[in-house]
């Protein structure tokens, strides 16, 4: 057995084991931690498959951000977890769920095995046209040129998700700040960590964002890291969570989509097609969109975790 095959096999077994753990373990919190480890292992798997962009995204969003959201939910549910387990679904429901999940898995396994090999791919078409976009990273070319509309719409999905979370607020505290836990402990370890980690994290986040044009990386991964740094500042009590009624906050939140749509319209005027880029200006316009998206994505991702407004405006 070659070392690389052994590594792949070990990774596959660990992935299956972790997935099983996350589904079967009793405690919600343990399941979430299992899920986060699963995300990290998946990152490794993507890296083994040379999908560095996917690996970075999985680490940032799949493992990191989603894990953090789930962990927050698990902590909040701790007080009612015991009652919830008493209301567990009956045997029939469980068998039905197992059957449904099992048949989907079998269907997928079968379908994946019958997929043609080599797979038909648009990669050659991307390679042929990437020069016109003036960026070096094919993933960036797909996300911001060939399929730019999808990316624009995805940022709108995030805005709607944020609004959906805000809409859970109590009417009396509308416009106020999310009730994100704050440690008022100036000498605490969190405070210390925030002072050391945040400058480093901001530099790395900025770097991941900037190299995204030509190398694996980009705005989503960069924004996730920046959002994590922001959350650390809030957690350490160095900054308070923003008021959701703040005009400045809302301006930064919609800046990305707004600039994206404007650049699209500019394209329909200058290049004859919505989201088209006039020759020689593609990179300039792509970087403009990415620069505008970075603060919006950072804020939205952070706000998703901070949750609905909980405290009145004055407090």
């Amino acid at each position, binding site marked *: 057995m070659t070392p690389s095959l052994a590594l792949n096999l070990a990774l596959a077994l660990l992935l299956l084991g972790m997935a099983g753990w996350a589904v079967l373990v009793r405690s919600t919190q343990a399941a979430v931690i299992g899920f986060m480890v699963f995300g990290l292992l998946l990152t490794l798997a993507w890296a083994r498959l040379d999908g560095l962009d996917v690996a970075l995204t999985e680490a940032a969003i799949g493992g990191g951000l989603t894990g953090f959201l789930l962990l927050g939910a698990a902590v909040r549910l701790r007080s009612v977890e015991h009652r919830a387990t008493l209301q567990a679904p009956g045997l029939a429901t469980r068998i039905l769920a197992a059957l449904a999940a099992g048949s989907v898995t079998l269907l997928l396994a*079968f379908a994946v095995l019958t997929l043609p090999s080599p797979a038909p791919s*648009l990669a050659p078409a991307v390679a042929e046209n990437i020069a016109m976009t003036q960026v070096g990273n094919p993933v960036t070319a797909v996300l911001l040129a*060939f399929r730019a509309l*999808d990316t624009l719409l995805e940022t709108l999905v995030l805005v709607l998700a944020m609004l959906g979370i805000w809409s859970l607020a109590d009417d009396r505290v509308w*416009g106020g700040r999310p009730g994100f836990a704050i440690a008022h402990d100036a000498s605490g370890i969190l405070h210390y960590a925030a002072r050391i980690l945040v400058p480093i994290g901001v530099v790395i986040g900025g770097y991941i964002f900037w190299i995204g044009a030509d190398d694996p990386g980009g705005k989503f991964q960069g924004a996730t890291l920046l959002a994590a740094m922001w959350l650390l500042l809030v957690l350490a009590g160095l900054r308070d969570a923003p008021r959701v009624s703040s005009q400045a906050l809302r301006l930064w939140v919609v800046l990305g989509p707004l600039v994206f749509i404007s650049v699209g319209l500019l394209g329909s005027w200058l290049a004859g097609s919505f989201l088209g880029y006039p020759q020689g200006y593609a990179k300039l316009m792509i970087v403009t969109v990415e620069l505008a998206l970075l603060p919006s994505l950072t804020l939205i991702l952070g706000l998703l975790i901070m949750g609905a407004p909980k405290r009145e405006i004055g407090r």
Partner: protein
Amino acid sequence: MTESPASLLLVLAVLLPFTGVIFGLLIGGRHVRTVALTTVALGLAVIGGIVWHALGTCSGSGTAIEYVLGGWSPPLGIRLRADGLSVLMLLAVAVVISLVSVYAHADFAPHDSGKETRAPLVFWLMLLAIWGSLNLVFVSGDLFTLYVALELLTFAGVPLVALDGRGETLRAALRYLLFALLGSLLYLLGAVLLYGAYGTLDIQLLSQVVRPEALSWAALALMTVGLLAKTALFPLHIWLPPAHAGAPAAASALLSALVVKGSWFLVLRLWFDVMPNVVTLSAAQLLAALGAAAIIVGNIVALRQLRLKLLIAYSTVAQIGYLFLMFPLAFGLAFAGMDSAPALTGGMLQTISHALAKAAMFLAAGLIYLTLGHDRISDLRGVAQALPMTVTALALAGASLIGLPPSGGFLAKWLLLSAALESGQWWWGAVMLLGGLLTSVYVFIIVVRSLAPAEAGWMPKTRVPQYQQMAVLALALSAFLLGLAALSPVDLVQLGRTPLSLLRGTP
């Protein structure tokens, strides 16, 4: 293919409502309603332009309206494409959205203090978001863009369910969210398989290369089941009644009349336009069998409801069933080498007349609730006295659900019934007639109960503005008069479409 400046209207139809969301959020405060209503007016002009353009090409070249984004033609890039089905849906949704906006003008007014409040902000922004997402569903020509459209639609719909913030509506919203996300996930899995097998996500290109093989069946099955969960077809309907009945009236109207039609439209696209040669008649029969079960179960459970809003929500469960009867009818006709167009037209008419009628009914229920302070069906006395226009609207909308002439529901059922007889599938016709009978029972009960005179000295709890009643009546009248579309000189449904029998070849 026509790519004229008018094609840019397709982009605007999608992005104008979302631009409204952005500015509504940015300006916020007491102005969100103004922003939303302005956007609705501008959006109406855009949709009007598209319909005008489509009618022009209908008598001319007869091709669909297309727009290639960024100049990158598929399979590398993505295109928007509006055929006859898209144009009709765009128009119907625009009518419902604008009349619901008129109705909601009073319900979601800015607070007297001028301060921003939660419910109006969320309602108006999500109304625009639902509009933009649905328009995207109708004009998108790419399976992944359609996935994003489904996600947008989910995140726009769920907050409306929990708009009044009570615990039970939160629970309904969460259940809806789980069903919708599971549906999206299954759809995405199918789309990924199709890309893996055929290397494109463009609907037009995919329809030329897709083969009837195990992989396509797996993809079609995964995507269809996912979409059925979102459409709430029996037995995946359990999330719908609490979600649709618990929301405020204007939000229920949007959810029940429009949102479920988005995922239904996508099933239609998959079966008729992406993989018509993969579909088998027995699969279509299975889909219709679920539809028939929905009609019977939905109507019977509706009959047993004590509250008006829940009755209307269960009636939606039943009416969704009708939308799936067209599948074996159209494919049956195409297999027999006959013209399947009437079945498709019937299905489209059923969708549109249900959208108009159901919006009218939920809004009417809202006004009745305001007037009585409750919506118990056993005690609707005095409603006709206080709200004559609303009860008329309820009767007209009910007539369309039953399928009385000259309503849209009548023409739809007429077309579907004749397709059933022509293709030798009389049993689907029998289900339709039985469904109509059950529907007529509860419509009759509601109307008769609300005609009963009020006790002497009874006063309505709230005086309802006249324009709200007029908006409801306008919706119901559109549904009732939709049957006159039979007199239309142009057949918009078939614009830019290849007849099914040509796509399938004759077996």
